[in-house]
């Protein structure tokens, strides 16, 4: 039996959250969701045992970048959970900015399950076949 790991999917588009939820559940993950950075903050308080966050950039209220900066400013979250940006923001400067702020990987939308699995391997998460 493998340990069920928990991922938070943060995206203001419900359809994207559903797609990511489907992919992650198939890989055996427990999924929590947030529709913007502010919701992500309160989900983080309720779920300090997250091992991964899939994080959109552009969202109302608090955007993904600001949430990332907030997350990494907390000593207990300085390295974990791992953060993979999942965004339409597809420019090199944005990537560098996210990496500097503590993102571990970066996915430019659109994505598919193989791409997610490939990026999780990059951050040292072994993907188990569903």
């Amino acid at each position: 039996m493998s340990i069920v790991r928990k991922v938070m999917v943060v995206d203001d588009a419900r359809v994207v959250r559903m797609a990511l939820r489907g992919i992650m559940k198939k890989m055996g993950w427990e999924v929590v969701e947030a529709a913007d950075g502010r919701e992500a903050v309160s989900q983080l308080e309720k779920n300090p045992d997250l091992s991964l966050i899939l994080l959109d950039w552009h969202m109302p209220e608090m955007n993904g970048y600001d949430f990332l900066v907030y997350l990494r400013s907390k000593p207990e979250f300085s390295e974990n959970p791992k953060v993979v940006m999942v965004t339409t923001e597809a420019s090199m400067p944005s990537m560098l900015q996210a990496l500097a702020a503590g993102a571990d990987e970066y996915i430019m939308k659109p994505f598919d399950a193989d791409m997610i699995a490939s990026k999780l391997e990059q951050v040292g998460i072994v993907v188990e076949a569903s």
Partner: protein
Amino acid sequence: MQQSTYDFLRDFLVRHSGLALSEQKRYLVETRLVKIVRDYELADINAVVAELRKNEKSKLAQDVIESMTTNETMFYRDKHPFESLAEHIAPEMLERHRQLRVWSAACSRGQEPYTIAMVLDKLMPDSLRRCRIVGTDLDEVALRYADAGVYTQMEVQRGLGVRDLVQYFEQDNVNWKVHNKLRGMVKFQKLNLIDDASVASIRGEGEFHVVFCRNVLIYFSPEERCRVIDRISKRMVVGGYLFTGATEVIGQTKSEWAPVKKGQSRLWQLLKSA
């Protein structure tokens, strides 16, 4: 597709590319050749074969070979061969040789040779001078793509981490272009592994210390597979290493090889060339 059509195609592909298709690969032929039917505005696959029978050296013939031999590739495919290269093989070879020469023998769109270039560049500051990578393939369209070094957003997100992307690529509109430094380490050339003269044509590159020939041997008949490995052996230094696909085993070759394990990778060390 009529049986005689499929039989002709199988025979044609073996003769021109060494690709040995089993009876079960009929679906593959049908799916891959749909594009040719469309591009040439022909009625169906039977019509493609009628054209092939008239002229086996035509543009259409070349397009048929290319559509059947192109494989999906990605950066860092299978990962462990590149870890093995970085941690074991390259350091061992560079201790003995001033320059490291690597041949990617079925490189398709170039992801494998550029991955090798990234791996080697991380190992040494003077990689451009000390490493030489040659990528070869039968497919001219794929080779032109590889040589241009421009990949789509989807392609650079398969196998490649964001840190490699920002370090070794530059943004080219919606695409991503390989840095000139990596491109300077890699050279591309058309080569047919089942043709003695074609394989001999890379003699000018010197003998290779490492050869990647992965996921291509499976397409050849057992006899042709042995001949391909023997041809490759003639272009290698004794003591050099050959990476094959995980399930591709060297059989009754004239050349002699020892199976070795380096890190997570099982590969072959050349003891005596053919």
